[in-house]
Structures are given as structure tokens and as C-alpha cells.
């Protein structure tokens, strides 16, 4: 079988069904949007005190009930009232920040100490990547040095040869 036919089969059997399922499942709803109250609610932390959920999703597990959290429902109603008054999203969020403090925002702010939270993952990634490249560079230099030391003409003992054979066998076996 040619490479082209092989790949075509793999596409048909593996990728195509995936593609079709993803399309059928997602295209129909690409234009739907959650309503504005819930969208704003998802930016606010539920202040029930027993969870880390948003006002739009809190179901207060472990409290004395499970179901739509009363505090979250109250917060959503407050958002509704402000929307009815014609307030903008930013104004509504500011109202909640004034009422509860910065803790009500579900995301850290991009100002003050909140910047540290956003910067941390980037710092980890940058430092980690630099470290990996540094390690790779060091290991490559070491490998080059060993290759140079073992240049042609050097005597290879049978023990060394056997050791090398065993190593090759180990490293090539998956």
C-alpha cells in the first residue's frame, strides 16, 4: 500500500469522524450567547463564603443544601436590577467591588498585587524554558566533547564493545 493510501485511510478512520462530530456538536451553537446577567455573574465570586465559585454557577456544595445557592441567586437578581436601570457592565462590577471589596472579583485584577498572580505563570514558563535550553546546551557540549575524545584510531577493547552493544540494545528497545 502506498503512503498516500495509508494516510488517506488514517484520515478517514481517525480524523474525519472526530472532525464531523466536533462540527455537528459545535457549529449549531456558535452563535448562541449566555444572557448578560449570567455573563456578568461569571465575573463575580459568589459571596456565600463556602466556595470558590462564581455567582452564575454556585451550587454551594457541602452547605445545608445543594442547588442554586441563595446568595448567588441574590447577586444575580441585583445584577438584573442594575441592568434594568441601564447600568453598563463596568458600572455593575464596580458596584459589587464597592459593596464586597476586591475579593468579589473572580479573577485577580490587572493592577497592584493582582499583577503578581498574572505574572507568576509567565515567569515560571520563561525561567523553565531558559533552564531547559541551558540544560540542553550543556548536555550537547558534553556529548560533543565525548565524541571528540573517542575519535577514530583509539583502541576499543572487547569489554567496551560489549558494553556498547548492550547499551545500544537497551536504548533502541522501546
Amino acid at each position, binding site marked *: 500500500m502506498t503512503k498516500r493510501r495509508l*494516510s488517506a485511510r488514517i484520515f478517514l478512520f481517525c480524523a474525519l469522524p472526530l472532525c464531523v462530530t466536533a462540527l455537528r456538536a459545535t457549529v449549531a451553537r456558535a452563535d448562541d450567547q449566555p444572557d448578560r446577567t449570567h455573563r456578568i455573574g461569571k465575573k463575580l465570586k459568589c459571596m456565600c463564603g463556602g466556595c470558590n465559585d462564581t455567582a452564575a454557577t454556585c451550587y454551594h456544595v457541602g452547605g445545608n443544601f445543594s442547588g442554586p445557592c441563595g446568595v448567588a441567586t441574590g447577586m444575580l437578581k441585583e445584577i438584573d436590577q442594575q441592568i434594568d436601570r441601564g447600568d453598563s457592565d463596568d458600572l455593575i462590577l464596580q458596584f459589587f467591588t464597592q459593596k464586597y471589596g476586591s475579593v468579589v472579583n473572580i479573577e485577580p485584577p490587572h493592577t497592584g*498585587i493582582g499583577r503578581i498572580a498574572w505574572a507568576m505563570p509567565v515567569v515560571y514558563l520563561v525561567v523553565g524554558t531558559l533552564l531547559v535550553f541551558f540544560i540542553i546546551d550543556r548536555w550537547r557540549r558534553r556529548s560533543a566533547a565525548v565524541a571528540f575524545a573517542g575519535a577514530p584510531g583509539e583502541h576499543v577493547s572487547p569489554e567496551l564493545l560489549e558494553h556498547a552493544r548492550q547499551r545500544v540494545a537497551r536504548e533502541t528497545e522501546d
Partner: protein
Amino acid sequence: MDVFGSFALLLAFLCAVYAFVGGIAAIRTRHPLLIKSARQAGIATCALIFLATGTLVYLFFSDSYWVAYVVAHSNRDLSNFYKVAALWSGQEGSLLFWSFLLSIYIFSVLIAYRHKNGELMPYVGVVLAGVQIFFLTLNNFVASPFKVLGVAGAHGTFDIFTRADGNGLTPLLQYPEMVIHPPNLYSGYTGFTIPFAFALGALLARYPGEKWIHLTRKWTMIAWCFQTVGILLGAHWAYAVLGWGGYWSWDPVENASLLPWLTGTAFLHSVMMQEKRGMMKVWNVWLVFTTFLLCILGTLLTRSGVVSSVHAFARSSIGGWFVGFLIVIFVVCFAAYAKNSDYLKSENRLDSIVSRESSFLFNNLILLVSCIAVLSGTLFPVFSEWLSNSRISVGAPFFNKVNVPIGLFLLFLTGVGPLLAWRRTSTESLKRNFGWPLIIGILTGVTLLIFGIREMFSLVCFSLCAFVTATIGMEFFRGARVIRSRSGASLFSSAVDLTMRNTRRYGGYIVHMGMVFIFIGLAGSAFNHDTQKEVKIGDSMRIGPYSLVLQSFDSIPEKNYTSERMIVEVMRDNKPLMMLYPERRFFQTNEQSGTMVAIYSTLREDLYVVYAGQSPETQLPVIHAYLNPLVKWIWLGGLVVVLGTIVTLLPNRRAVLVLSAAEQRADAAAVAQSLAPSATFREGHD
């Protein structure tokens, strides 16, 4: 019986202390009888913990309402099935259950290696006994599950007081998955103790070579598999019970379970570098130490209440003990490393950046960055309060923004890493292995874009899923085709044969395929949609292609609760499809309620229907309906991951040349001549 349980726990503590002290003495003196007695003390500790756990289970089944823990977590009407779950529903019982699962692992290790690895096992035994001493201290002196209710008698005596009934089990745990989710997760947490004990033991003993890695590989795989299943079962429980339409909310306790999983996954990959190339010895030892430390940290986060979590059942003042234990472990690990670091010297060399080694380095980088980012995000509210006196919330949107790009890069490496060669990958090999998968990935992305998908991360995720699926598919197809050409078997049988000949490699591919399924499910969450409506009987509401018609709404008294249940008919294209029964249960004993979500699940999407209570204004029942695309792929992916892990744990089959019957009758010379063209393969186990 409670006295019997208490006594068994106390005796277990004493045996563990003997196993620890006797083990150290045995290591110093090398006396064979002392080594044997320390090991037997370890086995006795486990047996006694089994007895204590069995006793507590018996107390639940016999409705012993003079035992405080039984009163707090059970009642007479509770079914026997959930009385088992009551064992780990509270602080004291869950700590005993932790000791119980740890004992199963330790018992298995001590029995399996009783005649092997004589130099290493005393060290391993001492480390395991040390961990057991900590948990038995909690079980005996801090959070005993066998405390009884009592009242002060007239003459200063203590009279045991028996309650007529218990408080009952929290409704959230009265769900079948809750009977298997905690045991799986705990088995993951406790299972990582075994590689930790072997790593620390090997370091302390300066045990030569990579043997400890070979010895612990299966244990690590088992622990990792339990952790994976535990996390997914927890996610499924949250999805099916809580009624908020999601499965992962980045709650601190959920994060705590993810942290050791991430480092454990990193270890399972980087360990291959040590096995194949003798590289990264220091890194691997510290990865194992870190994984175990994160298991303990996770328990600390769960139980201390230091961060606000929905898992309120776990809050207690026990955190200080775990902080102390963490410090002790870290000091011991660091001291062992400082003393024996020369033993971990390795020949780290790399021929090319385009190699399997590099891909493992990046894999470890990504997993570790994700782990540290999740950890720092989880603890950030506490730090912010310390630093600025104002608590800053770090919720799901933050974790999603940070982890989605990381996850996508990891998915990319899942496709690339296994097909890169050790040491160096040639350009020709790159073209051969990745040319078509890359085209397939790009084509998938372009097709989805043309059909209107605009969610960038989902688009990239689907493309990468197609890419990884193609790389894995090609690997199986190429190998199976070679076997088919020699054996004449079908392509599927040849693929199975191929897998069984190198279970570790092809089992690994199956695990990767499971992860692809999980990513498909996660990518679908960008298209979740929900709507809510008050409905009268006969009213309908629409969501996506479905119409929901309320057929009835009533209240039904059951043995342990009262159910408010809706019967909702689901129509699609004006044709009846099925009936759904969302309900809310009110448990009279503890005056709590629980949601029972009704889900119509297909590979394409989940129709998720919640009875959201009655409207306070109109008293009409409210239906909250969600349409969640592709969720089923996550649970399916979990099953595939388990299947792949089981395959990796199987021994390789060896291909054996077996002659056909006709050839057996022929003489030796004829056989020799006919061998090459007509030989067939049969398998035999190693």
C-alpha cells in the same frame, strides 16, 4: 466492638514503631533475624489496621449509635451500600481509610519482596513504617473514629450514652459514584508512597543502578491510574450531582488532587530517560519526593480550611500535623540527598535537540509549570491577604487562561514525543512520521474554520487532536501491516498482536489516545449553552434542537428522603425522543437536600436537565437546561486511559516461530529449507 477497634489501632501503632526502630537497628547491625522481625512487624501493622477498619464498618452495619463517628455519619434508614461510603465521609473515618489503603500497598510490597532485594528492602520498610506511624498517630491520638458518646455519672463515672438514631450521611455522598470516587483518589494518593519509599530507600542505601526504578514502575503506574480515575470520577460526580452544568471548577480541593497527578505524570515520562540513557537521576528522585510531598500538601489543603473550598466536610484543625509532617519529610529527603548526592551522578549527554530526550525535557517543563501555576494560584488568596491585607480571589477563569495554552502544548508533545528517536531524529524520519499527520491536523483546523468555528483554543485543540490521532493511528497501522504480511491475520488481530508484543510502548499510545479523547471533551466546553424557565404542566421550552415539555411534577416520599420530581418529555424535530426525571431530594434526618440531574448523553452532546426549585413569586417549578457538547468524550477518554494503563502493566508476549503440521512431519533438512517462507508466529509469555 469499639474497644476492639481502638485496641487494634493502638497495637498497630506500637507495631509500626517497632518496624521503624527495629528496621533502623537491622540496617545498622545487618542481623538477619532483626531484619525479619522488623518486616513481620510491618506486616502485623497492616493486618491490625485491616482489623480496625473492619471493626468500624461493622459498627456502621450494626447501627452502633453510641460511637460518635457512626452517629455523625449514618442513620438507620441509610442503605447498606451507603453505609460503606460513610466510612470515609468524615475526618476520622477518612484518615483511617487512608491508613487502610496505605496498608494494602505496604502489605503487598512487604509480601512480594520478602525474598528479594535484601539490601534495599530494610530501608524501604523503615520509610514505609515512618509514614504509617504518622497516620496511626492521627488515628489513635488526634482523630480517633472509635470515640464513644457518654455522660458523666453520679460518682464521677463515665456512662456510655446510646442515641436512638444517627444524623445521617450528607446527601451529596448518597450517590453511587461517591462509593468509588474517594477510594480511587485515596488509592492514588497513598499509592505514591511506594515509589517514594523505594526512591528514598535506594538513596539512603546507595542502591546501585536503576533497579529501584524497575521495581517501582508498576506501583507508580497503578497509583497514577487510580489518581486519574479518582479525578475523573470526582469530575463526573460533580457533573451529575451538583447541577451546575460543569465538571471542574478549579476548587482548591480539586486542584490539590491534580498537583501530584501532574508531577506523577512527569515522573512516568522522565523515568524513561533514566532507564534508557541513565540520565536525570537527581531529577527523578526529586520528582518522586515532590509527588509524595504534594499528596500530603493536598491533604493539608483539603483539611485545614486555609483556602475556601466547596469541600466543607473536610475542614478541621488538623492542618498543623500535616505541616509538621511535610517539614519532616522535606528535611529527611534533603538530608538524604545532600549526604548521597554523589550516588546520583549521571552521564547526561544529548546529541540533538530534535530527539526523544528533548521532548521529555519539554514534557516535564510543561507539566511542572502547570503544577506550580496551579499551586501558586490556589495559594495566592492567602498570600495576597498576608501581603496587602486584602484577599484577592483566584477562580476558574484565571486557571483556564493559564492552563489552556499549557494543555495544548502538552497535547502537541503527546503527538510528537513518542515518534522522535532517541539521541537524534533525522529530517527524513521527521518527514515520514509527521508529514501526513501535520497535513491532517491543518486540514481539520481549516475545515472547522470554514464551517464557522471561531473559538481559537477549541479550534487549535481539535486540530491537535486530529494530528495526535493520526500519529498514533499511523504507528499502529505500520506495525500491524508488517505483522499481517507475515502472519496473514486481519489488520485488527495484527494490531492486537503488535500491542501485546510491546505492551509498554503501545499501551502508552492507548493512554495517549485516551488523553486525546479527554481533550476533545474539554474543547467542547467552549460551546456550552444554558437556559432557564418557569414552566406549568404542558408548557415547553427550547434548547438547541430539543424541546422540553413538562409532563408532571409531584412529591414522592421515599424511605430516607422525600423527592420532588419532574417528568420531562424530550422532543427532537417534533418527535418524542425520551423522558427525563430531574429531581431534588430532601433528607429529613439532617434537613439537607440534594439535586439529581437528568442527562441525555450522546457522543455529540449532553442534554442536561436540572429541577432548579420552585419560583418564590409564582411557585412554579423551574427547569434549568444545559446543552454541553462532547462531554461524553471525557468519560470515554478515562476508560481508554485505564485500558491503556492495564496494557502497559501486562508482560510482553514473545513471538515464537512454530512450524505447521506438514512441516513437522518433514525431515529436518526439508524443514530447514521451508522455514523462511512458511513459518507462522505464535505467542508465548515471557
